[in-house]
């Protein structure tokens, strides 16, 4: 059965973006050959990417116009099956994207019938919903050696306590570390 995996870069103080929307400058601290390799491996093994509206819109705008050294990942991102979960969005034009408005549990259950895993990036609001429903099987967080001093927290308050099981750690040469955890529901 495929898993639903949260994959994010997070600063030491717990932010996934700076104080402005899409301020991801801190990614440059850890981005490089190793992280690119990790990303490509994940995308190669991926069934679908799952997004909330805000992340979907930003990613669609970014990857449909990316050039040069990012062309390989952009090609993947544009081709890969994607799901955007939003009650307000009326259409989803990014190539190979399906818009889901309700029955999140049923949609995620369908994804998990695949042998391949699906990934959710960014999408902090949607992540809260999925966490509350107990639908995230694995948390894969790259901790970036930076304190930003402000921004949007990756994990929003008011959710249930979630016990995790450490699966592995991977230290990157530039000081990032990828922590992988299984959520207890799936143990």
């Amino acid at each position, binding site marked *: 059965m495929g898993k639903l995996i949260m994959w994010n870069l997070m600063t*030491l*103080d*717990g932010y996934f973006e700076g104080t402005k929307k899409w301020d991801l400058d801190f990614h440059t*601290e850890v981005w490089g050959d190793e992280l690119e390799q990790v990303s490509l491996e994940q995308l190669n093994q991926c069934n679908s990417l799952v997004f909330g509206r805000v992340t979907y819109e930003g990613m669609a705008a970014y990857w449909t116009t990316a050039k040069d050294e990012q062309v390989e990942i952009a090609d993947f991102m544009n081709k890969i099956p994607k799901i955007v979960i939003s009650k307000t969005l009326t259409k989803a034009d990014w190539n190979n994207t399906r818009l889901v408005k309700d029955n999140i549990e049923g949609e995620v259950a369908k994804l998990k019938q695949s042998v391949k895993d699906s990934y959710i990036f960014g999408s902090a609001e949607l992540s809260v919903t999925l*966490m509350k429903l107990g639908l995230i099987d694995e*948390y894969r*967080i790259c*901790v970036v*050696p*930076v*304190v*930003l*001093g*402000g921004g949007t*927290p*990756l*994990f*929003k*308050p*008011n*959710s*249930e*306590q*979630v*016990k*995790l*099981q*450490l699966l592995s*750690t991977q*230290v990157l040469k530039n*000081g*990032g*570390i990828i*922590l992988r*955890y299984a959520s207890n529901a799936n143990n």
Partner: protein
Amino acid sequence: MTAERKVTFAVNVTLDGYTDHTVGIVDNELHDFFTRQLDDVDMLLFGRVTFQMMESYWPHAESDPESTGSEKMFAQKFNALPKIVFSQTLQKTEWNNSRIMRSNLVEEVLKLKKQPGKDISAGSISIFQELMRHNLIDECWFLVHPVLTQKGKRLFDGVANAINLTLVDTKTFASGVVVLHYELKK
């Protein structure tokens, strides 16, 4: 010029950055880690709340038959080390080798750094945050516990300045706690 003393901090934190000390996995491996940390320290700095919490527990833990060997080892070292509690209101302390200071934390740390000795260690999160705001922490260990608590106090509350760090090394405990050891870039 001789090198100044370092200011260090080691703390338990959840993956989502909270410091609720009731949710972590406290075992002998964790106690042994904190005991070893104290080898490099000869001054501990506290705020009042943490100080009083520690003062009510560790002096007894040293001889408590319920304590594990690891807890006793930690208690012995912890109780013996010199401690300062920064408070405007505290009247007295009964914890061994401790004294109350009314003076400004930052000024005091700048003075202590110039004196000979081993590392100075923040013992409270409030002390850590104040020293982070003044860029006075040199080295830290975050013991990341495998849990998302999603509530409580955040480790970096009130730290609004950007800081770059260098990952020195990491360690994984059997419990799934991952120790992230960083030096702060100045």
